[in-house]
């Protein structure tokens, strides 16, 4: 049999090897390979002979080192993984380095695994990384953990010692919600309870390591849970006459059929699945968790990547701008308040800020460190995070995989985390910012009312929104012209005009920052008594709300020209993009009059 070449009918399972440094992971792996018959012929004898000649005691770890250089011998072993098989199936054993410096590799490895073998030295007992790795496995959602109490030969196969370690570690893992599937007393060196039951442990009646790994279950895709599709992208490829608009993503949980009514979160838009598309196959009727098909919808709605598609009638995700999460911080710099990070949750990408550190957990002791204001490297922290716009998520206690997030700092994933709860917030950080700004603002000696009297009209921020078809823009410019012709102080600036100026330091994907600057600019221009007009394509209700808040204490008027936001309370007026611009502008004028911005208005 060849470990490199399984048949696809055959199952494959990934197992991560975790545990404190020097607790004997390599020895256990080496022994496991020997017992599973995964080694090239004669290789074991050869390494034993080399050790004898160099007067070194043979260790299985040497065997692993020797094999690392031997790709051509048909076995793949390296710092990261090795392959072997039992009579039942094929295995990928992922070696997670026990040293704290390698936690990023440990997490990467463990997140790819479906089960874990955690090695503890019977003599040394539970050490720092024994606990830390236990914590990581819990956070990563690995539920199948078998604990190998190794080096039993060095403690005379003492049952009492084994039971003590078992009780202590069971209690620790219990706090994390992990119940190990087994504790196995082993000796990697002597081969005790690896493949064959050891006569030295007559008091042990559980499985051997090989029996245990064969008993691990393969992760199945959760079809019985509510349907969750993180919208990874929306395609409209026009090449060769393709006119499909396809919503894509990998289904996290649940199943869906053509004809099902769907809701997008957080936007709240609704539609119905028209077809389920795959390449080089006819459209399908159903799709389920784990699959990555495409969906066409019966209606033309504007969906952004990063939303979630869920089924109408099933429990929706929670949406909030503030939430409580547990984070494991791996970043080079500590996580601090006031700094903007990037959140990735499902397909969602959003700026995020640390609002409050509720508790920092010492992962090794599971004790709480009080009064910390920041999250340091390798800390596990419960904290409150805030996004400028609502994001949708499941609580990790409701649906595990869709409550997982990572945080990016310095272009790298700096934290892994799970969402614990949505938080009602009295005041957003944006509102706090505006309040602080207004306190610092030195008021002009000329009152706003005096200015309005002198100019013959009040100040206003008028925002036209809609799809990127130019209609909103055309209306905005027409309003500027009409107001100017009446002698009003009206001024139009579009977002693109700021690109090389005010926004020159911002990157392409800094849309939220650009909106923020536009809002600040509006505050200044409306403060001068002018009617400041702008147009925004693809703005959603949250963008408009944010602009309104930033323009405070002055007033905003928002006009949607063909926008499809289903519930935009911030929108004051909706215009038909195909309608006559003059008539549309007249309606805006009516509204300005009704709001006492202008006293009289006739076009």
């Amino acid at each position, binding site marked *: 049999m*060849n470990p*490199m*070449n*399984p*048949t*696809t*009918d*055959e*199952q*494959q399972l990934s197992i991560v090897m975790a545990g404190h440094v020097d607790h004997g992971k390599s020895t256990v792996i080496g022994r496991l390979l020997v017992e599973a018959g995964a080694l*090239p012929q004669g290789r074991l004898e050869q390494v034993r002979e080399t050790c004898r000649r160099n007067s070194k005691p043979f260790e299985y770890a040497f065997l692993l080192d020797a094999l690392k*250089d031997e*790709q*051509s*011998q*048909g076995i*793949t072993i*390296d*710092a*990261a*993984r090795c392959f072997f098989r039992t009579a039942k199936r094929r295995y990928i054993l992922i070696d997670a380095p026990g040293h704290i410096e390698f936690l*990023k*590799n440990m*997490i*990467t490895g463990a*997140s790819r695994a479906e089960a874990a073998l955690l090695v503890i030295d019977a003599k040394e007992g539970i050490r720092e990384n024994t606990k830390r790795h236990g914590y990581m496995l819990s956070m*990563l959602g690995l539920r199948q953990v078998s604990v190998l109490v190794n080096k039993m030969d060095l403690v005379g196969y003492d049952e009492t010692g084994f039971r003590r370690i078992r009780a202590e570690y069971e209690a620790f893992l219990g706090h994390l919600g992990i119940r190990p599937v087994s504790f196995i007393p082993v000796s990697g060196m002597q081969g005790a309870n690896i493949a064959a039951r050891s006569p030295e442990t007559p008091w042990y009646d559980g499985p051997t390591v090989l029996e245990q790994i064969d008993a691990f279950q393969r992760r199945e*895709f959760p079809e019985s849970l509510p349907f969750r599709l993180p919208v*990874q*992208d929306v*395609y409209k*490829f026009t*090449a*060769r006459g*393709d006119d*499909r608009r*396809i919503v*894509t*993503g*990998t289904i996290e949980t649940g199943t869906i059929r053509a004809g099902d009514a769907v809701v997008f979160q957080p936007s709240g838009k609704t539609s119905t699945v028209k077809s389920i*598309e*795959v*390449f*080089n196959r006819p459209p399908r009727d159903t799709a389920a968790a*784990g*699959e*990555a098909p*495409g969906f066409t919808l019966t209606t033309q709605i504007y969906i952004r*990547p990063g939303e979630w598609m869920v089924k109408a009638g099933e429990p929706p995700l929670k949406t909030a701008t503030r939430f409580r999460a547990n984070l494991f911080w*791996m970043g080079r710099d500590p996580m601090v308040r006031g700094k903007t990070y*990037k959140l*990735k949750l499902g397909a969602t990408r959003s700026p995020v800020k640390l609002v409050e550190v509720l508790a920092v957990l010492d992962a090794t002791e599971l004790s709480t460190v009080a009064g910390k204001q920041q999250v340091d490297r390798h800390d596990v922290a419960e904290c409150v995070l805030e996004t400028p716009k609502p994001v949708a998520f499941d609580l990790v206690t409701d649906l595990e995989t869709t409550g*997982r997030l*990572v945080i*990016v700092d310095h*272009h*790298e*994933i700096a934290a*892994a985390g799970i969402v614990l709860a949505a938080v009602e917030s009295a005041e957003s950080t944006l509102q706090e910012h505006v309040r602080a700004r207004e306190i610092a603002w030195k008021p002009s000696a000329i009152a706003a009312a005096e200015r309005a009297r002198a100019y013959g009209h009040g100040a206003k921020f008028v925002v036209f929104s809609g799809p990127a078809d130019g209609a909103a823009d055309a209306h905005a410019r027409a309003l500027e012209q009409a107001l100017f012709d009446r002698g009003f102080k009206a001024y139009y600036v579009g977002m693109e005009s700021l690109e090389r100026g005010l926004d020159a330091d911002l990157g*392409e994907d800094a849309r939220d920052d650009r909106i923020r600057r536009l809002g600040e600019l509006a505050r200044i221009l409306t403060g001068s008594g002018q009617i400041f007009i702008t147009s925004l394509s693809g703005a959603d209700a949250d963008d408009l709300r944010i602009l309104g808040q930033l323009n405070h204490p002055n007033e905003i008027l928002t006009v949607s020209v063909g926008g499809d936001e289903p519930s935009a309370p911030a929108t004051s007026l909706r215009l038909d993009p195909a309608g006559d611009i003059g008539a549309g502008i007249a309606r805006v004028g009516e509204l300005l009059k009704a709001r006492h911005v202008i006293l009289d208005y006739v076009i």
Partner: protein
Amino acid sequence: MDTLERLEAHSVHILREAYREFKSLVMLWSIGKDSTVLLWLTRKAFFGHVPFPLMHIDTGFKIPEMIAYRDRIAREWGLDLIVGQNTAALEAKQTFPDGALTRVECCKALKSEALKHTLSGEWPRRRLNPATGEFEWEATREAFSGVIVGARADEEGSRSKERYFSARDRQSEWDVGDQPPELWKQYKTDFAPGTHVRIHPLLDWTELNIWEYIERESIPIIPLYFDRGGGTRYRSLGCLPCTGCVKSPACNVADIVEELRTGRFANVAERSGRAQDQEDGGGLETLRRGGYM
């Protein structure tokens, strides 16, 4: 879902993630089985379309059938194909076949260097004009920041240390020891200006998975992999002077699948026919640190 369906869905997810996150994206196409499967998966991910250019580094010593096959598929599927070459080294005869360099040095010059400078747009490159079906010199040469590569972890030791999204610095160097974590389908998609990211959608596939998938999907594959009468075939494709055949009577995809399933090559590395790997012990890891794919 069976193993191939799982692998396919995951690769498709990675390809879509790359397309979403990288403005200037390119896929390396070596004409071999892995990158041709990658190309097929791209058509899966994008519903028949290939929404980014492909790049082939032509060392000038490739097995001639590879170039013919490349151009035929590119024209048939309407691919946006870019071809780069170290013309200076070829003209100066600074290569292994000319006796001027060792095999590893030659790889570095004709592949690593050519790739680096073709990706960055520094060196001239030819691009297939889909309208005429002819190659034309590119007037303006975009620098690519996301490079999709068909590397598999089981193929060779150093590749098993790869991430799905792997950052390279300005010198195309790879810091194996200090790579960012990767978990829960979240990858490194943010990068500092001047760096680029390699994307590996096939990392979890084995050689057998590749052939089984070619069989299941009926993917057109270059016939060099088949025995055409001499009792030998190529198992891995490269340059003519440095690529050897394996003894094998497999003359179609089904034969190869069967051959791999029965473990005929259990003790022979897939790249054993690639002479440069043997030249200095860890040849490929040395090359990879310096930018080899």
